[in-house]
């Protein structure tokens, strides 16, 4: 499990690469950032900071509000990858399976392959190796190089688990030459072959180790594997009696590496085996004077030095060094006893959680930095192991969950208060709106609109254009009407000017009527347009009023609904908090048990050395005394 985090991180980086740059075809000289959806971008922002919890939540909330509008499958791929990174394999598998079932969508081959790959990884982590293999076989050629090599590595691991060593070795041909994954796969294959303890397999295993041991790469991880291969080969040569060959391999190991102490110890034993005791003492003395006393290779060197002195016939010096070894072991037994008390105390747990409130932790690497230096001195390999890191990470993740629940628990009263205020304010506002004159105004306006509409219809049906006359025209028409009787009186008069006046009256009346009737289509169109506008205003007002009325009616239900939701979530928070407290206690206990067990093993080894040193010292002392007598 240890390699899940780095591998997953690399993977998810690949996914995000596909996600962010997916739309950018081909090679571009300048990096181009395109954010397809804001919610998706916010999720990426959290993901890039390894805040998987927040990133998942962001995508789920966006999905609820249908905020992710692009049609491609990147968000699903990201969500599945995020679940995988957050060790929620079931959820991750569900997302990928759903994605792969969406046949009607035109999903690019790169996305399909990535989904198969991640689904395969999910199965692999869950121990479903046959299903994992099936998913890996479904991959065509759309994977990026890094993912492809990881796929090969996982395939190699599956073959090894099935003890299909032939297929496992065939995978080597498909890695790129410079691949680090290839070296890991080779190392694992070699280890498995050697562990089988059958001549043929062991031989193949050593051949693979030989290849790794002679690598000329300067890649840091490859160098570590090279050291490990050389160390294994050296110890096997030593066991088989080939001291020279073993020294050759030991000499290939770097002086500043994680295998240095083991190599120095081995070099000493190789010389010792050839009866070169003086040469054997040199690397052991170097080890004994190193600052890594708690390393078991150094412990072994402590007791090996006097043994070599004995062989050289230097009894006094041997006695002196046995004494030094006993003192050193005693000192360490005392220190480790203190550590046992420390691990059992609350301080140990306090140091695991260095008070980073609310920090989303996705890696426990930094935990070591805050631990007691004495603890790291004795248990560094264990504390750096993936087993511990994984469990410590889980512990920190639960603490973060607790922080989140506390945060929401504190927010619940605020939400309730806001709801109460909202209810109050809304009621007041709505009452004011519903009570004031606006209701009457709407009614009056509606009546006016109806009256006008009726009038226009009547004008249209009667085609009485004069009804559309302007105010000035109406005044003139009225003036003519008022004088109509007078003109009627002089209708038959032969008085001077009567005929002229009659003619003028006729002309004026005719002109006025002609103007109004000629303009009729324009006037009726204009007035109908005004009516339309008025209709719109009235309709909008009515709608608002209806909406207000609906709100008035539904608001109590909505508020009740909110209240129910808040209460429901509050009870969920309380139930989950209890579960989380239990999980925290269990995980703390688990971490303690793990640390104590490692310390017990370490102490047992020191005790063994201590007893051996005491016995050898007593034996040598007796023989020296015997000689003196």
């Amino acid at each position, binding site marked *: *499990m240890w390699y899940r985090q780095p591998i997953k991180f690399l993977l998810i980086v690949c996914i995000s690469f596909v996600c962010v740059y997916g739309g950018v075809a081909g090679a571009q000289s*300048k990096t181009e950032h395109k954010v397809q959806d804001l919610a998706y971008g916010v999720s990426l922002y959290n993901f*890039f900071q390894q805040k998987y919890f927040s990133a998942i939540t962001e995508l*789920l909330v966006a999905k609820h509000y249908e905020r992710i509008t692009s049609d491609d499958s990147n968000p699903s791929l990201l969500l599945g990858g995020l679940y995988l990174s957050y060790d929620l394999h079931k959820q991750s598998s569900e997302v990928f399976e759903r994605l792969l079932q969406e046949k009607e969508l035109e999903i690019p081959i790169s996305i399909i392959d990535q989904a198969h790959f991640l689904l395969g990884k999910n199965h692999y982590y869950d121990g479903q190796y046959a299903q994992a293999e099936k998913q890996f076989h479904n991959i065509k050629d759309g994977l990026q190089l890094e993912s492809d090599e990881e796929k090969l590595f996982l395939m190699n691991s599956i073959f090894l688990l099935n003890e299909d060593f032939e297929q496992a070795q065939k995978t080597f041909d498909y890695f790129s030459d410079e691949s680090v994954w290839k070296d*890991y796969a080779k190392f694992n294959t070699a280890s498995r072959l050697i562990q089988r303890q059958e001549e043929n397999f062991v031989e193949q295993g050593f051949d693979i180790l030989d290849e790794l041991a002679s690598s000329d790469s300067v890649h840091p991880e490859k160098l570590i594997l090279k050291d490990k291969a050389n160390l294994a080969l050296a110890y096997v040569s030593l066991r088989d009696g080939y001291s020279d060959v073993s020294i050759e391999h030991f000499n290939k190991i770097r002086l500043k590496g994680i295998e240095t102490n083991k190599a120095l110890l081995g070099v000493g034993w190789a010389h010792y085996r050839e009866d070169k005791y003086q040469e054997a003492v040199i690397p052991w003395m170097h080890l004994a004077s190193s600052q890594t006393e708690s390393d078991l290779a150094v412990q072994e060197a402590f007791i090996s030095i006097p043994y070599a002195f004995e062989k050289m016939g230097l009894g006094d010096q041997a006695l002196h060094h046995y004494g030094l070894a006993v003192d050193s072991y005693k000192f360490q037994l005392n220190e480790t006893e203190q550590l046992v008390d420390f691990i059992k105390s609350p301080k140990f747990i306090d140091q695991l959680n260095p008070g980073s409130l609310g920090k989303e932790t996705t890696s426990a690497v930094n935990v070591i930095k805050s631990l007691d230096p004495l603890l790291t001195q004795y248990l560094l390999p264990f504390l750096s192991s993936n087993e511990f890191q994984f469990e410590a990470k889980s512990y920190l993740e*639960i603490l973060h969950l607790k922080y989140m629940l506390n945060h929401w628990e504190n927010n619940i009263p605020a939400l309730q208060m806001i709801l109460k205020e909202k209810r109050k304010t809304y009621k007041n506002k709505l009452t004011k709106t519903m009570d004031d004159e606006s209701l009457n105004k709407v009614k009056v306006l509606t009546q006016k609109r109806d009256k006008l509409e009726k009038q226009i219809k009547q004008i249209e049906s009667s085609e009485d254009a004069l009804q559309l006359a302007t105010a000035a025209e109406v005044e003139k028409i009225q003036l003519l009407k008022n004088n109509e009787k007078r003109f009627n009186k002089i209708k038959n008069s032969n008085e001077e000017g009567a005929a002229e006046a009659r003619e003028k009256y006729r002309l004026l009346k005719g002109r006025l009527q002609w103007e109004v009737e000629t303009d009729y289509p324009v006037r009726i169109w204009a007035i109908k347009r005004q009516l339309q506008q008025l209709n719109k205003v009235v309709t909008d007002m009515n709608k608002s009023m209806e909406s207000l009325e609906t709100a008035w009616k539904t608001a109590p239900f909505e508020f009740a609904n909110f209240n129910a939701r808040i209460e429901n*979530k509050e009870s969920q928070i309380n139930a989950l908090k209890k579960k989380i407290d239990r999980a925290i206690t269990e995980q703390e206990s688990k971490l303690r048990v793990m640390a104590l067990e490692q310390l017990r093993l370490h102490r047992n080894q020191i005790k063994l050395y201590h007893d051996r040193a005491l016995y050898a010292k007593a034996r040598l002392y007796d023989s020296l005394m015997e000689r003196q007598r």
Partner: protein
Amino acid sequence: MKVYALKVFIGLFLFFVFIVNTAVYAEDEKPAADQTEAPQSQGVQQDIQSLKNEVIELNRDLFILEEDLLFSANTQISVFLSLDVDELFELDSVQLKLDDKIVSNYLYTEREIKALKRGGVQRLYIGNLTSGEHELTAFFIGKGPSGRDFKRGTTKKIEKSGYAKYIELKIAGDSSKEQPDFEVKVWE
């Protein structure tokens, strides 16, 4: 003496076995070894996974509840920040004002800057606005290619309707221009 030497070599052999076993570098999924300790450990792990999922779902529901209650769609405004600048520009902080009132002041960590540079988008602000015209003003402070301090600002009139408003502030530019600037995009 012979017995002791034998013990030492047995110890050496065990040491070798120890090395080979612990050196199985990327392969701790050994069925036999892992399954023996599985039941209890697996149980706790499964509980943790289940808890994680339950809290995620609850967290989602609470976010939705909070948004429904506090930022209803007809009044909601969200302002996002994205970065499209090259490596030579370092963002320090952003200030956001709405109608001349400071609503957000944000100082960025190195980790956040990296996430923004890789294409992430930060939700800078979420709040409520009444319908009508409003003024959004934003400033950013940072360091340019030659370590020069930068301060740039932008102002945009926004019309708030009855729908949620999403505004993206993008700080864009490269060292050839030497002056990154804001691009404001109103998302529909």
